[in-house]
């Protein structure tokens, strides 16, 4: 299919996190969104009055863009409340890119907020009743990812030690991120000895439960050149929606990333070997393993061996999840926005001790639901446009 999204027609110009970790009682997800939006606007030098498009999603406010319109007193010309779980924000980037290119809006904010640590995970994202699952009491979403991990171990000989390597690498990156939740080193042995949640995933194989939020500002390529920071351009995009409930996922070892990745690479004219920094949604230790395979960084079944020996850790051959990931940095429930923020900062060269040298291309891969919605964005610095 012909790609009508033009490279350089839109850029990400501002990024920011809201307060992360544990916020004060009675903070609302919209407070966190508004804080993120103001910080991201400040990052690029735009004003609230410049914003003419809203993109938002959170499990705690179904009508996110209406909340935000009201709270910030905005009159958007364009809004998009697309909700496909943690990968929603990767979808928002492409939707904003299209809307800006078409002239439907000029300054778009994409935002997220969650207080799931404060109010509890169950209260922040209540699960829909499903007759075909409810009687079996799966501990969702962990049980779905555990069954994917069990299947990967069965078919390919992947081990719990290899899963633990993902958690250890994430922790090493997190120790270089001042705003990361986790502050202490972690070993493979500690991961293996930690409390089991849904076999084979222990609590250290699972993402954190934190509060947090953030925002991204996008505008036209032309206007981007007049702003404070170096623009970062979306240059590739692909969607791979495969199922809603885990029982309907055809092969638990092959995700929709095997569809979204090739689409994004084709649009960007790049391949895995051309990517300088990789930001994958690490909801559980099995997910980066599946995504590294499906996105072409290693052959199917080799992910466990690929991540071993510190290959994706600081100093390894492939920098993956350089902010410390959902496993060690923050995970307010729909984490996809944070990997976009980190990729932009890496491409701008703002990441201090964890900076990947001369990063000019980044692959951001969002995941939503129970391996359900896979969205790949490829971002590039000015040399890629």
């Amino acid at each position, binding site marked *: 299919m012909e790609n009508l999204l033009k490279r350089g027609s839109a850029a990400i110009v501002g990024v920011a996190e809201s307060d992360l970790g544990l916020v004060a009682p009675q903070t609302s997800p919209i407070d966190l969104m508004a804080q993120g939006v103001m910080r991201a606007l400040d990052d690029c030098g735009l004003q609230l009055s410049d914003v003419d498009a809203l993109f938002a999603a959170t499990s705690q406010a179904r009508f996110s863009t209406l909340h935000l319109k009201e709270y910030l007193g905005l009159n958007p010309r364009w809004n998009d409340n697309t909700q496909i779980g943690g990968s929603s924000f990767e979808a928002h980037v492409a939707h904003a890119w299209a809307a800006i290119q078409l002239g439907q809006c000029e300054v778009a904010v994409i935002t997220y907020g969650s207080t799931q640590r404060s109010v509890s995970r169950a209260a922040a994202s209540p699960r829909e009743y499903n*007759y*075909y699952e409810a009687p079996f*009491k799966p501990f969702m979403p962990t*049980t779905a990812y555990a*069954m994917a991990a*069990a*299947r990967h171990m*069965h078919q390919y000989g992947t081990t719990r030690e290899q899963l633990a390597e993902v958690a250890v690498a994430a922790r090493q990156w997190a120790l270089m991120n001042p705003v990361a939740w986790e502050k202490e080193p972690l070993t493979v042995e500690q991961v293996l000895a930690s409390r089991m949640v849904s076999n084979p995933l222990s609590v250290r194989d699972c993402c954190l439960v934190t509060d947090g939020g953030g925002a991204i500002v996008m505008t036209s390529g032309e206007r981007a050149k007049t702003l404070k920071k170096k623009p970062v351009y979306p240059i590739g995009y692909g969607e791979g929606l495969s199922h809603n*409930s*885990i029982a309907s996922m055809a092969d638990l070892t092959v995700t929709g990333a095997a569809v979204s990745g090739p689409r994004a690479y084709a649009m960007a004219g790049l391949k895995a070997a051309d990517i300088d920094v990789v930001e994958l949604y690490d909801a559980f230790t099995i997910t980066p393993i599946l995504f590294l395979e499906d996105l072409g960084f290693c052959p199917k079944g080799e992910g466990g061996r690929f991540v071993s020996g510190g290959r994706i850790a600081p100093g390894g051959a492939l920098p993956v999840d350089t902010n410390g990931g959902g496993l060690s940095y923050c995970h307010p429930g729909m984490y996809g926005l944070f990997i976009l923020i980190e990729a932009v900062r890496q491409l701008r060269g703002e990441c201090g001790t964890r900076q990947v040298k001369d990063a000019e291309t980044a692959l951001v891969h969002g995941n939503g639901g129970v391996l359900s919605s896979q969205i790949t964005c490829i971002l590039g610095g000015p040399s890629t446009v």
Partner: protein
Amino acid sequence: MMDLKQQSPLGKFIEHLKAGEFAFQYSKADDKAVFYPRVVAPVSGDGALEWRISKGLGTVYSTTWIPVKDGQPYNVALIDMDEGFRLMSRVEDIDAKLVKIGMRVNFRARAGDKPDDPPYPVFTAAEGV
């Protein structure tokens, strides 16, 4: 296509379960089993779905166990039925940690956990463990 003013796909499934039967749908046009029950087959949109009764035999596709504070861990599994469809369920009567991928299992209908809950399908090991 089913008349939704008369009965829902899930309603029909539960009606069969109450009779001890594990029902699924079959599209003749696609030569394919359809599960969970729907008003049309996915992809083709075939609305002339037949209801069939499963022989009740399947294979564990994947499995997990979940610990319970001060209790025994319980099993959650995905079962591939011989007729060519998959569902979430559990394997009962054995230690949850002994449920393995590839294990052959047999259906039985279980009454809902509370008096007003509908029955649901569970499994037992079909051969010695």
